């Protein structure tokens, strides 16, 4: 489904991704762990189409060359990035934003537009499951939201946009235990045979709730080790440095 080969990315003359390979099949959940500054967010941004990187190599999704598409067109083919730092956009209403996004993506998939009332009903159902107050719909996008509220808003968007490839960049960071459980359940609910997920995290705790099929370690701009969920526990116990040192180059 997602095929990444020899992906390189640099910014401001600095190489960050340095020949990264990764394949994710339909329905698989992959976790990426790695030290701060390893390039995890860069990978997420490059896949979602953020400007500013010099990119080479290959990244295709169901055979479609992602790197050739504008960010909005990647969203239309089903790519979704839950941002590590969701952006505050004062003056743009959350409801308006969400409904615009849902309807644009639906139109590109050949589905009819959702009217305001139907949309509100569906949004409220999703919000109830995420224990979000519906009042968040009438506020500006992420403006003045707490860290945890922003992350829930990302999961809300993901739930409503129903992506085919969900990339979650440290969605669990900065959450308290209850919020972590709600967010993990939100992610787990979206797990399905035709949806792939790439979960970037520092915390094995999330991976207890959303058990990945594979765990990868990103370091120095490439994937240096892969395993199953036991690798997450090993990293937790020993740290990146000694875990990686234990592996012959």
């Amino acid at each position, binding site marked *: 489904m997602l095929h990444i080969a020899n992906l390189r990315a640099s910014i401001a003359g600095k190489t960050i991704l340095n020949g990264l390979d990764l394949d994710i099949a339909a329905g698989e959940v992959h976790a990426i762990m790695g030290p701060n500054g390893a390039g995890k967010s860069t990978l997420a941004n490059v896949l*979602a*189409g*953020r*400007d500013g990187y010099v990119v080479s190599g290959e990244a295709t999704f169901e055979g479609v060359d992602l790197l050739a598409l*504008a*960010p*909005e067109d*990647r*969203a*239309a083919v089903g790519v*979704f*990035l839950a*941002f590590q730092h*969701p*952006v505050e*956009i*004062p*003056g*743009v*209403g959350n409801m*308006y*934003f969400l409904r*615009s*996004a849902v309807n*644009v*993506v639906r139109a*590109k998939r050949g589905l009819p537009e959702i009217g*305001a009332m139907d949309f509100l009903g569906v949004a409220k159902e999703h919000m109830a499951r995420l224990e979000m107050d519906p009042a968040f719909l*009438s506020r*500006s*996008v992420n403006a003045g939201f707490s860290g945890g509220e922003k992350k829930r808003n990302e999961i809300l*968007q993901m739930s409503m*946009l129903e992506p085919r490839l969900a990339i979650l960049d440290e969605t669990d960071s900065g959450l308290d235990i209850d919020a972590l459980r709600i967010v993990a359940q939100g992610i787990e609910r979206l797990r399905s045979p035709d949806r792939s997920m790439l979960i970037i995290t520092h915390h094995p705790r999330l991976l207890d709730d959303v058990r990945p099929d594979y765990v990868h370690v990103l370091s120095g701009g490439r994937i240096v080790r892969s395993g199953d969920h036991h690798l997450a526990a090993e990293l937790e116990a020993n740290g990146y440095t000694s875990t990686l040192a234990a592996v012959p180059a």
Partner: protein
Amino acid sequence: MKAADGSVMDYPSTKEEAWRYTPVDEIVSRLAAAATMPATGTSVSRQVVDALAGDHGGPRLVFVNGVYDADLSDHDNVPAGLWCGLADLSHGRAAANVALAGIDWAVDGFLARNHADGHDSAVVVVDPGVRIDVPVHVVHVSAPDNTGERADSATISHPRTIIDVGSGSRIALIQTYCGLDGRAVTNASTTIRVGRHAEVDHCRVQTESTAATHIGHTRIEQEEGSRLRMISVTIGGDIARNAIDVHLHGPDAQTELVGVNVTTGRQRHDTVVTVDHAASRCASTQRFTGVIDDHGRGSFSGEIIVRPGTVATDAHQSNRNLVLSPNAEADTRPWLQILADDVRCTHGATVGRLDDDALFYLRSRGIPLDEARTMLIGAFIRDVTDAIPHPSLRTHVAAIIAASNGMVATDPERMR
């Protein structure tokens, strides 16, 4: 140019602070070359006025090329205590208010010409102690002659509006300067007297053609305890100047001026504001916003004067600009003359671009680039558009802003 009292009055020079950014010579030569259209035979219908200015539910006075048009106007059944009409009608109150125009003196050659050459003046009078719930709409339509014998020259008009709001009264006013395509020169003046403890909500919307020249001067006189809120929207014109002069004569008066210019192509939009605190305990706010694209140029000069001997003055000013293209330019210039000690005064100006992070965030959710830009521009000027108290005018202005900026039309009622 001669003033009403016969004295000669020159056009201003760009050496004067208030005219620094205005291409005065160019305007003067356009003024000189423009011709007056005959009072009859324009193609402006009710549908045209509705489309250009909107129908906002209250009485409407319509002027075409500076000439009152009775067929297009509706002000027969106005609420008690309100009078609107022409200064030259033989109506007692209107006559009294031409006398009031004594406060409406010409301060420069443009105003002197407006007073000398204007055809019809709109007058709105509110008796003391009256609250008018529907907005009074004064519409000026420029209808240039694009095919007839005057097609070679721009069409000139000198609209003049005099508004007198009695003590303790309350009224909402809408002034629209709009026009059909083609070259026109509009040299407009408006005087508003806000009586003791009166309240005025004033929207001024300028959406003339992009080939038009607009020189606008609004003079506001506020008496004790009065409140005025003005929302000014400048979209049209090739060269457009919007001057607002507020004089706070009585203590405890409050003024809130909010404005936006949406400038694109090769447009030049010049906003020049003066708030003169001549009495104690007055509060004024200037909040102006510019969205400038392509080769457009927007300028804001905001003056605050606090007279000696006044106390407890509150005066604030801000100018925020969103510059959307590398060739667009925003100039901003605060100009403070604080001649008293007991003053709380703030001012600030910003010039910025669209937030790339916000743009990427919206696009990553599938929203196309042009729509994402529209959302962010809409958000930037929301402070101004939300301040428009009439929903129909809010929608009308949003649609014109969207069209003028090549943006995707969005209904502001949906965006909140």
